[in-house]
């Protein structure tokens, strides 16, 4: 459901069915709603059977990359004699994205159950749930739920009486966007600075504590119990568009809409229906100007690109952007695109881990150029400079944070060039505080 709003007829509530229902937070409440049946079932399955079921469901990573989950699990070695780890990425920090937060604070047992099943699938001995430090309420809810699951014998040395050991440890971050990048997450978990690592080695070969590791997003893992319960064929039947975009997806819609919230859609729902029917559309008298559909790291879309676009992985790519995390930022005609691009660049400059030169220097330089442009001190050459910086920040660094900073700059200039020119020509200027 579009928490805090009631379920809209165009939603497909699966993961979100119990958002807002505080009783679902307890073991008894979760069981009364059908919880832990999937884990019971999975405990009687072989790891291969679980992996095959998830492969057949078509589930793809819901954190942003969209990599097939079952395939990712199948990369984990078998019979290598080493400990394996599952990391659940609950470091949700991508601007515009607030979907995992609802899973964490309303249905923590859905995540615990998903982690437990994932752990069985990859033969892991422990799941580390890395939750961002700012998520205080979700942290307390999840901590209580894990403790209760241990007390109820669902987790621990004899999980649900199966004789199998399932351990879940909650690890709290401390304020760093970059720790949502999977290799930075592992470094942070190991007690290091959150600097991303060069791949290879890939996590399935050498991940956290140098052991085979899989990292999955909260929403991905929370979907797994439904797939085990209701079957891969059911999940794979959920699509309104592409055969490659299957299942449901939580879309967090924010910005200039009348009903911001987290909506669960069958993949492929037209983006206009999502924005206008589910999220209530624009405020009275306002028109749509731009949409960032998948968290701040994906290209900005124009209303023409939104028109007729299915909300799925392939459809949004065909319109020049990405589904990403499903964090949708909607902007109406009051929005100053140049200012917002600067604000996003400032975000990335603030969050750069600073280990790669192109990112450390490029994000800060980009921000400074945009700030001076806004302050009325822009130069004719600034557009070329920004594009050149963006080029040097794309595909040149260990992780994609600097690419993510370049993305709104390139798409902003490409699609809203006249607004940049207005600042450069002196037709507009703002009283902007240059902070960096």
């Amino acid at each position, binding site marked *: 459901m579009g928490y805090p709003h009631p379920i809209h007829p165009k939603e497909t509530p699966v993961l979100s069915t119990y958002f807002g229902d505080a009783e679902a937070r307890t073991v008894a409440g979760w069981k009364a709603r059908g919880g832990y049946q999937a884990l019971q079932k999975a405990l009687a399955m072989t790891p291969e059977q679980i992996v095959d079921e998830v492969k057949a469901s078509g589930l793809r990573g819901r954190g942003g990359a969209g990599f097939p989950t079952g395939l990712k699990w199948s990369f984990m070695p078998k019979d290598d004699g080493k400990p394996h780890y599952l990391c659940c990425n609950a470091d949700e920090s991508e601007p515009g994205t607030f979907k995992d937060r609802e899973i964490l604070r309303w249905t923590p047992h859905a995540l615990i159950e998903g982690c437990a099943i994932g752990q069985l699938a990859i033969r892991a001995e422990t799941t580390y749930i890395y939750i961002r430090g700012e998520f205080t309420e979700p942290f307390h809810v999840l901590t209580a739920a894990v403790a209760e699951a241990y007390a109820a014998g669902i987790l621990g040395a004899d999980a649900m009486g199966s004789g199998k050991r399932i351990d879940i440890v909650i690890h709290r*971050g401390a304020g760093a966007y970059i720790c949502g990048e999977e290799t930075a997450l592992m470094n942070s978990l190991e007690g290091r600075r959150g600097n991303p690592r060069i791949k290879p080695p890939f996590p399935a070969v050498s991940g956290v504590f140098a052991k085979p590791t899989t990292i999955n997003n909260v929403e991905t893992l929370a979907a797994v119990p439904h797939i085990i319960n209701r079957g891969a064929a059911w999940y794979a039947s959920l699509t309104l568009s592409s055969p490659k975009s299957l299942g449901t997806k939580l879309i967090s819609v924010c910005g200039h809409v009348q009903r911001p919230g987290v909506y669960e859609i069958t993949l492929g729902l037209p983006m206009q229906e999502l924005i206008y029917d589910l999220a209530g559309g624009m405020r009275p008298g306002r028109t749509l100007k731009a949409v960032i559909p998948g968290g701040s790291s994906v290209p900005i879309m124009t209303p023409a690109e939104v028109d007729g676009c299915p909300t799925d992985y392939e459809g949004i790519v065909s319109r020049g952007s990405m589904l990403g995390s499903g964090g949708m930022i909607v902007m109406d005609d009051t929005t100053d695109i140049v200012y*917002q691009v600067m604000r996003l660049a400032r975000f990335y400059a603030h969050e750069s881990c600073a280990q790669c030169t192109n990112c450390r220097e490029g994000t800060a330089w980009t921000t400074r150029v945009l700030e001076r442009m806004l302050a009325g001190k822009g130069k004719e050459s600034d557009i070329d400079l920004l594009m050149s910086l963006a080029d040097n920040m794309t595909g040149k660094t260990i992780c994609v944070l600097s690419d993510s900073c370049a993305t709104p700059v390139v798409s902003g200039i490409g699609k809203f060039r006249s607004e940049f020119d207005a600042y450069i020509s002196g037709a507009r200027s703002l009283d902007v505080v240059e902070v960096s």
Partner: protein
Amino acid sequence: MSGHDTVPYQPVFVGETLAKLEALYPKYPEKRALLLPALWLVQEARGWVPPEAMHEVAQQLELTAAYVAGVATFYTMYHLHPVGRHFIQVCTTSPCGICGAEDVARELLVQTGCRDLGATSPDGRFTVVEVECLGACGFATPLLINDDFIESVSVDTVASVLARYP
């Protein structure tokens, strides 16, 4: 430097705090992995992370104090100096920014008397900082006051929110 210049430094890792740290050892294959949790324990006990505590953490986890400082300074949530009684983080990243978050931030600075971001009010009651994306973009403007997550704050509700934090 510790803000307790006239009072000798009292170790953090004794009694209950030490027990909490020790209870975490079996959960990780390496001691170093306890670094973030240990720093949280320090902040929970002291309200900030004094340099002396970094030495203590280093000793507990068999690391160097320089290493601990290197990690502690990477993360934004560890306070490396004392802060006001109530620590306010206001999200002004784009999704909240387009919904009026910068006005809320300005109002907070005026009403708390902090005047500048990162500064503590003269009465020691508040410190206000901007934070990058609190992950609650549909509930603009979100604040994190100490451990309390407060959604949908507007310029008009700032006063009533602050009144809850004497």
